[in-house]
């Protein structure tokens, strides 16, 4: 089941590769079909998750095949409560991204080819339970990102943005890689494995030495952190998303970015509880940079994409805070924010992309009164902005609320003040910049130059409706997510907080 979700986009890429370059309908059709297929299978998996039988390590829908036995590399995929939602969200965003790709008019063959490779890579990275594939799939998704921004990007800063995002993300990925290799080498040569489940079991039985954890954890934390635009390594994000083609921004900001967070939750926390204990204080401090500082930066942006990009960085702060609080409520909330923000980021970038095709600008000072011309897109943008400032009814609220409750109970120093800051950032600063954007883009008098602006026709509404529906469904009935996440988060939190006890045991031994 998981294999077909991952394989469909790759197969589509193959088909596109062997199709002559002027068959543009085929590219688009194949891409839409493949992502739709992935989405349908992912939906079936998401809905059937509770009923499915659990296999090794509590994972479900496991598929495993030997690949390079001599190195212990297996193709090994499976889901638990944490990545099942992420894959479902990724499949929704991928389909939406394929839908909005109608705006691309040049070199479509290469574009759709890269889009499909990126989609397959993203879905594969979240499904993999083998360290090698986990990382390789991520690279498969990352490289098309750079190329797409470089070739189809927009704006005067395009080249600088491409350079910036490439530099940062490659550096982040490399630092994380060094950390992962270090982790791998901690296992005695005879038992070495890339199997995440086996690694987890091994380190549960034989905890890593505390001083080693102290070195490896920050490598993962900063490496993955850079991939998620952790403050102060965040400047690539608004810049890159501002220049990226719509679909790339949706897929990266929505899904691929969450890879770093997923890596932190899946690998760093449970395998290195001692490291976590030492370093999560730092993470908590830095996340304030995301929540407050990037919120303030967002307040000053006059370009819609820059504003959305900065707000997306700010939202990541909530995930970091949830992870740093290291308790069930916080981590569950963090995963909910990841999923909710994925849908929301995709939605907002899709909307701004649509507006740009109509107005050829995203400068908010030039816009105004567009709601008159764009009743559907405008209404969707208002809803997205409201979701972005944590309005109940959307999934983001559930996540942010749980993170605040969780962080209140956290053990790091002055945790309660962090909650105060997070509430200020989410409720007040978020509302200020989101509503300012609505005021400048949609409200006010309509200028004559926008008379030719047209609202989305029926079939172009599909991606927006789909993303909004998912946000609302999870917002109205959050237990669709939390009931799945909770048991898995509980297991991870249990391992991550066992640090002290385990360390004592190993000393005794």
């Amino acid at each position, binding site marked *: 089941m998981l294999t077909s979700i991952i394989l469909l986009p790759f197969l589509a890429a193959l088909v596109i590769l062997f199709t002559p370059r002027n068959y543009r309908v085929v590219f688009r059709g194949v891409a839409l079909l493949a992502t739709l297929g992935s989405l349908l299978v992912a939906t079936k998996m998401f809905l059937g998750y509770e009923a499915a039988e659990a296999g090794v390590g509590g994972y479900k829908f496991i598929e495993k095949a030997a690949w390079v036995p001599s190195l212990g590399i297996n193709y090994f995929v499976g889901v638990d409560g944490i990545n099942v939602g992420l894959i479902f969200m990724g499949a929704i965003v991928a389909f939406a991204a394929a839908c909005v790709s109608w705006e691309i008019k040049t070199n479509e063959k290469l574009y759709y080819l890269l889009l499909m490779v990126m989609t397959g890579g993203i879905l594969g990275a979240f499904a993999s339970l083998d360290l090698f594939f986990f990382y390789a799939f991520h690279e498969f998704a990352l490289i098309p990102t750079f190329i797409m921004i470089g070739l189809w990007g927009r704006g005067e800063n395009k080249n600088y943005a491409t350079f910036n995002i490439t530099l940062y993300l490659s550096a982040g990925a490399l630092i994380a890689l060094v950390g992962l290799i270090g982790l791998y080498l901690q296992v005695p040569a005879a038992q070495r494995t890339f199997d995440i489940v086996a690694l987890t079991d091994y380190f549960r039985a034989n905890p890593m030495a505390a001083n080693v954890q102290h070195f490896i954890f920050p490598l993962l934390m900063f490496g993955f952190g850079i991939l998620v635009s952790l403050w102060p390594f965040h400047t690539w994000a608004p810049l890159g998303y501002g220049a990226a083609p719509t679909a790339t921004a949706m897929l990266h900001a929505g899904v691929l970015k969450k890879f770093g967070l997923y890596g932190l939750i899946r690998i760093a926390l449970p395998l290195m509880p001692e490291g976590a204990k030492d370093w999560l204080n730092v993470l908590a401090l830095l996340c304030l940079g995301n929540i407050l500082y990037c919120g303030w930066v967002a307040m000053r942006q006059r370009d819609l994409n820059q504003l959305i990009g900065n707000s997306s960085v700010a939202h990541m702060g909530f995930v970091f805070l949830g992870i740093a609080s290291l*308790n*069930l*409520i916080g981590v*569950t*909330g963090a995963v909910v924010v990841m999923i909710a923000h994925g849908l929301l980021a995709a939605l907002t970038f899709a909307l701004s992309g649509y507006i740009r095709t109509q107005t050829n600008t995203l400068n908010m000072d030039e816009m105004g*009164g567009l*709601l*008159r011309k764009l009743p559907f897109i405008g209404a969707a943008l208002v809803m997205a902005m*409201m979701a972005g*400032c944590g*309005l*109940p*009814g959307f999934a983001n*609220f*559930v996540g942010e*609320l*749980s993170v*605040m*409750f*969780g962080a*209140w*109970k956290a053990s790091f120093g002055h945790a309660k003040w962090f*909650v*105060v800051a997070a*509430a*200020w950032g989410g*409720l*007040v600063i978020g*509302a*200020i910049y989101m*509503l*300012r954007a*609505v*005021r400048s883009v*949609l*409200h*006010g*008098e*309509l200028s004559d130059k926008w008379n030719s602006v047209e609202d989305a026709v029926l079939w172009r509404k599909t991606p927006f409706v789909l993303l909004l529906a998912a946000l609302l469904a999870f917002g109205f*009935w*959050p*237990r669709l997510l*939390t*009931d799945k996440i*909770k048991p898995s988060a509980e297991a991870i939190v249990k391992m991550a907080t066992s640090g002290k006890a385990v360390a004592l045991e190993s000393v005794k031994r």
Partner: protein
Amino acid sequence: MFENLQPEDLAWLILLLPLLSAAAIGLFTHRSHRLSAQISITAVVLSFVVSCGMFVMFKGAKLVLPTPLNWLNIGDLKVEIGLRLDPLSLLMLLVVTGVGTMIHIYSYGYMKEDRCMGRYFGSLSLFMFSMLGIVLSNNLVMTFIFWELVGVSSYLLIGFWYEKPSAADACKKAFITNRLGDFGFILGIILVWSMAKSVNFEVVQAWINSHPTEWGGVAAIAGLLIFCGAMGKSAQFPLHVWLPDAMEGPTPVSALIHAATMVAAGVYMLCRVFFLFGAHTVWPDFLGFLNGWSALDIIAWIGGFTALIAALMAVQQNDIKRILAYSTLSQLGYMVMAVGLTGPVASMYHLTTHAFFKALLFLGAGSVIYACHHEQDIWHMGGLKKKMPVTFWTFLLGTLALCGVPPLSGFYSKDEILATASHHSVFLFILASLVALLTTFYMSRLVLVAFFGSTRSEHADHAHESPKVMTGR
């Protein structure tokens, strides 16, 4: 699923009908004016009927809890979406659905020529849903959820004529000011939860009653933080600035949301969490400068101060809706002061009577504005008594009630508050009396200038009575 249905579970209908109406209008019928209006009006009338039924069935009962939904359940964080029927919520239900029904019907006339009537009724239904959610909620997080939804529906309705820059600015200001209050509100909720391990009113109350002394200070801080939310919604000083600007919305909206129901939500919630203030207050060290003041004293003085400055502001306004808006501010201050003076009953009494007579005044003002072709300056009116007698007499009745002339309802409710004040604090009693004097002064000024004297503009000269759906003739 339905085998265990109890009669009280019908209360869910009160909440669901406006939601269904909002969803149906938003998704399908918003292009059709008539149909949207009919759906929305039907929903609110049915809600009103069910509310009356609930009131009759359970008016003697102390507390009825229809079957709740388990909405969120992560570790210690358990949140229900559950309803709570007790005398307080039953009374408020009648106020909200009663005034709501009247205003939905009135809107049908007032908004007839607007090209976005579908959007208007959709937002109105969303508002009814959210407001009824606050009224029926049985826990703090659910209250917060609907609290935010009320904020957003008010945002949508204030900014209904979004092309007018003043309206677009006003809705933004209203939402952000409310968010400042909600910032305190959510922290208060978290504090309550960390103390009592629950957000359910029933459980928290029992918990506070069993630990009266050691948690008294924390409960009072939590109460004050939650009061921040009430300061936002009920526009208390220093978060009062958004309410006068909110008059940029259509007049029926001002009547329903910014006079009768939403702005009263803060007062309602204070009465709901009144138990937090029951324990005697011992402030922690960093709040040592507050020693000698209880949390309720602070609330009473904020309410009193708001009542006074708003009444003073009202004296020198010339826009008919703004005069009423400042009057609302002032009366809300009155109610908040009453809660602070340990008189939640007096406060709720005044809330109820105020909801009706202030909505009546706004509807009268709307009728005047409609007749004078959207002229709102009272100095450009004059002599309207002869032109629109029905509006005049109803407006006069509302004015007399607001001024506290017996035997109208306003006299009794205001008297309750004055009596409460006279028992507790001489200063606040004098202040409240002064506000009562100012209230009569500015309302008399409004009536004398707008309805008597000579006509002072062409619009006022050509004014004639509003359509029947608005006056009910």
